[in-house]
């Protein structure tokens, strides 16, 4: 095998890896559905985006929710903070009520309570939920 063809991908990959490797601030939120525990299926308010980053050892989350109804709707959420092994590292948080204006999008932010938190699950509950569809993919 020609050494040139072997080295070329490595030469191309190294700067890319160093660029991505150094930018450690954003934490991969992973597949959004895996991070959000929906309590029922929301009729109107949906989670449309989830971002996570790390700052000084603490995790910061931003959850973007959208209300497709023209009426105001209540939602409730809280975060379970987990360590790298999946153990919960903080007590259950209080449920937080949020009033969503009609046809509005809103960002909800959360900060981890301890640097031990390396992962999270968001528990999400919206007004007028339908029961979860057991056949729906999670």
């Amino acid at each position, binding site marked *: 095998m020609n050494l040139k063809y072997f080295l070329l991908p490595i030469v191309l990959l190294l700067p890319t890896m160093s660029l991505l490797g150094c930018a450690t601030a954003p934490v991969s939120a992973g597949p959004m559905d895996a991070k959000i525990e929906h309590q029922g299926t929301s009729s109107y308010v949906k989670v449309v985006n989830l971002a996570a980053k790390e700052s000084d050892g*603490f995790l910061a989350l931003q959850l973007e929710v959208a209300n497709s109804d023209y009426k105001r709707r209540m939602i*409730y959420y809280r975060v379970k903070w987990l360590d790298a092994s999946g153990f919960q590292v903080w007590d259950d948080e209080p*449920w937080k009520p949020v009033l969503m204006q009609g046809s509005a999008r809103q960002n909800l932010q959360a900060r981890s*309570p301890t640097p031990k938190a390396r992962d999270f699950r968001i528990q999400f509950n919206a007004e007028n939920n339908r029961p979860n569809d057991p056949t729906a993919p999670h």
Partner: protein
Amino acid sequence: MNSLFIRSISLVAVTGLLFGCSGTSSPTVGSGNVSYGDAKAVEQVTNEFGSTDLQMIAESMARSLAQSVAGAPVKPLVTISDVKNKTGEYIDTRSITDSIRVQILKSGTMRFATDIDGMKNQTDELARQSQSGLYKKSKTAKVGEMQGAQYRIEGNITSIVKRSSDTKDVYYKFSLILTDIENGTIEWADEKEIRKTSSH
């Protein structure tokens, strides 16, 4: 043989009556008119200051404070002064600051010096150990070794209440500041707003 068989059946039947038929009972005492609930549920019984307000304020303030000192090489030593209640209702603000202190201590980002409320107990114990003559000298806490806090946390809670014939609207604002005790500068401040509306 027959007699032994009958006796065995009878024993099983009696045991079943005594234990088996009673079903699995919960380890509770009482008639069942009292029920336990979810301490973290959103409390909407009335629109006066409630448990959810206390929990949300404490969580928001503690996390903001912890984040503000994250990455500091040394954990700052702080003390908590009282939060002034400027609302028209009775609110145990000590309970709020206690929750904030618990959460910050658990986060491991700050240390707390004895506050004014705890000072009498602290000095009483120090005096008892050092002046009573009851303790071995090498095992007693020494006088003059207490550490003074570098920062003081204090704040206030205010409310605006509006009523109409069928609506009551309450707006709460909880403000907290962190002051450098030596030079008097405010190093951090944050606030949490809550609106509660009820109609009847």
